């Protein structure tokens, strides 16, 4: 046991000390920070008009004269200047634009000139007002009482989705849950892949550098495999912990910057807070650890069977297939139907459960028995793959120059000590 600890220590320390590890710890949260800042910036920029805008209106139809109302930061000025002259003035003023309404505005599009591309809010405001005016005009022309019609149209129904649970009703807004579910699926999928591949590369390194024979004259192959898997796993957990801590800090900062009063991001952040992150994080840790143990053992067996990384292809494919399959299903189908029979089954089969269950958990409402069964199956699953992998590994690490096939691996499995 002592020797396994030594191996874990070496695997952990040599990896954590690498420059790439330290760089990754800081780069990823910075990316998240940068991305959320960018999203916030874009959202803010396109939703709000920050500076007063002046819109010169050239109305050849004379139908809109005096009817365009000034809105927040938008001022309409009617003018009789010819279009060409009005456009001249745009060149040195970014906050000025020209609205040209032709006589036949219903068939010829209304034109909006400005130096920069105008924001959607500005063109949207103009459009809304013009539609309103135009339909009022039409109604007046047809002798319809606009006051009555407006009164009749003024009903505002909004559907508020409520979910009935044992403890009462709760807000069932699925948008943020969906986001978290997909994020979890992507995260766990990448994590299983990245750290599994690290185990595999470690095994291949030991085999090609031929140190393996020295090591297994001191420890049993199983101890070495276990030490490596646990060591790399701890590296993964360290990295995640660092990322989560740094990301929380960075999104706090970004959130602070983005959530001014009336900011659209504020609403999303608010609903995000209703999601039970502690529970999700707990599930994530459980499925990461068991899923990692399950897959990294298989990756270790693959590493032991080959002489170089280029030979791993044929074995990698069947191993990663269930993972890839669930991942694709998760981001395309499962998140829309987290309680469908397919989702339930996938979240119970150990090979697909880490991804499938992590999509379902953020939606809440996974029955306890399903969660329990899934977790139980995960534990059975990783014990099983570790047993199979260890039997292949102990033979594989000493085999050189033999092109291993699946048949060969099966043979190795049945070798006696």
């Amino acid at each position, binding site marked *: 046991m002592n020797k396994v600890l030594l191996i874990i220590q070496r695997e952990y320390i040599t990896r954590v000390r690498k420059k790439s590890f330290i760089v990754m710890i800081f780069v990823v949260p910075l990316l998240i920070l940068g991305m959320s800042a960018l999203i916030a910036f874009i959202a803010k920029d396109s939703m709000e008009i920050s500076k007063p805008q002046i819109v010169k209106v050239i109305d050849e139809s004379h139908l809109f004269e005096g009817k365009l109302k000034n809105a927040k930061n938008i001022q309409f000025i009617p003018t009789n200047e010819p279009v060409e002259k009005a456009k001249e003035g745009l060149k040195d003023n970014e906050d000025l634009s020209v609205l040209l309404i032709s006589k036949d505005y219903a068939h010829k599009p209304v034109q909006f000139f400005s130096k920069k591309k105008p924001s959607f809010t500005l063109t949207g405001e103009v459009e809304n007002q013009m539609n309103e005016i135009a339909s009022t005009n039409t109604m007046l022309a047809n002798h319809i009482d606009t006051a009555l019609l407006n009164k009749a149209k003024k009903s505002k129904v909004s559907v508020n989705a409520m979910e009935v649970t044992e403890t009462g009703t709760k807000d069932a807004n699925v948008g943020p849950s969906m986001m978290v579910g997909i994020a979890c699926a992507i995260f766990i999928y990448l994590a299983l892949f990245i750290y599994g591949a690290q185990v595999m590369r470690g095994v291949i390194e030991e085999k090609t550098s*031929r140190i393996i024979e020295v090591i297994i004259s*001191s420890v049993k192959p199983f101890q070495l495999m276990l030490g490596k898997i646990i060591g790399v796993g701890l590296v993964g957990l360290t990295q995640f912990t660092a990322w989560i801590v740094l990301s929380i800090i960075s999104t706090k900062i970004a959130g602070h910057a983005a959530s001014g009063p009336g900011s659209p991001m504020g609403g999303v952040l608010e609903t995000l807070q209703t999601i039970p992150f502690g529970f999700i994080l707990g599930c994530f840790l459980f499925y990461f650890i068991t899923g990692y143990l399950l897959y990294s053992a298989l990756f270790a067996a693959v590493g032991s069977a080959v002489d170089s990384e280029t030979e791993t292809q044929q074995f990698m494919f069947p191993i990663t297939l269930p993972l890839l399959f669930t991942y694709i299903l998760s981001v395309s189908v499962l998140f829309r139907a987290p309680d469908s029979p397919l989702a339930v089954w996938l979240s119970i089969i150990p090979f697909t459960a880490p991804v499938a269950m992590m999509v379902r958990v953020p939606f809440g409402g996974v029955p306890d028995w399903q969660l329990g069964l899934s977790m139980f199956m995960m534990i059975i699953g990783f014990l099983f793959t570790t047993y199979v992998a260890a039997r292949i590994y102990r033979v594989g690490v000493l085999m050189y120059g033999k092109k291993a096939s699946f048949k060969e691996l099966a043979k190795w499995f049945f070798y006696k000590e």
Partner: protein
Amino acid sequence: MLSIRNIVKQYAGHRALDDVSLEVESGKIFGLLGPNGAGKTSLIRIINQITAPDSGEVYFNGHKLNQSHIERIGYLPEERGLYKKMEIGEQMIYLARLKGLTRDEATTRLKHWFKKLDMETWWKKKIEELSKGMQQKAQFVATVLHEPDLIILDEPFSGFDPVNAELIKDEILELNRNGATILFSTHRMESVEELCDSIALIHKSRKILDGRVKHIRNSYKNETYLVEYTGEQLTFDGSQPFEVLSEVAGEDNSNTIKIKLSDASANDVLQYLLPKTRINMLQEVIPSMNEIFIEKVNLIA
């Protein structure tokens, strides 16, 4: 020290070891010889408990081989290798700790060895920064750092330049004088004659010869002698009590003949030659291990 009894090891396609038994005496240097693919490495792996035999037993100091013996064996595999990206000092300590040493013990001993082999400036270097010969030296140190009772060396001299090979040979002899039993496999027959007390020859999964080097060589004597004389070249008419195998003319009027005796003794040869010429030397030819090796292997092939 080490008693190997009736070992059989079967692999899928072939039998690597077929009923092999050996006795390695304590404090001696034992040579394990055999052509490539004879089963030497399979046997060494069994002694190191890397693999287990299908049948047969190995006894270490009278006890059946078990996990506790791992720390008393040092093993240098034929295919050398260390972690390329790890610092050499740290790596040696890691390997020694896997063999049961504490960190402090390992550090003290490693400093001693580094000093002894002129490696002190290497401590912080990574393996990939060292030359192949330097790596071999480091690996040798890793093999013996935990002061094993039994040192198993698979082709220990391959990859060393003559100077370092000599250095390592001296270290092996010193370790042996200090009480370690050495088991090594090699193709270099001159090193067998120089170092080994006993040998075993394995060919096609079977042991075909074993014993003390002196006994084996003596038992392969076949009444062949070398005679060197000065004077005119002799001609033999068939009345001489020996058969002439070859004649070589040397410098300074000297000649060497290789002869094979049938019934006569060395004394008869001298008696016959004395009146005819001046004899410088008469020496019995003892076959080299190389000759015996080739003869035995070819006999079975």
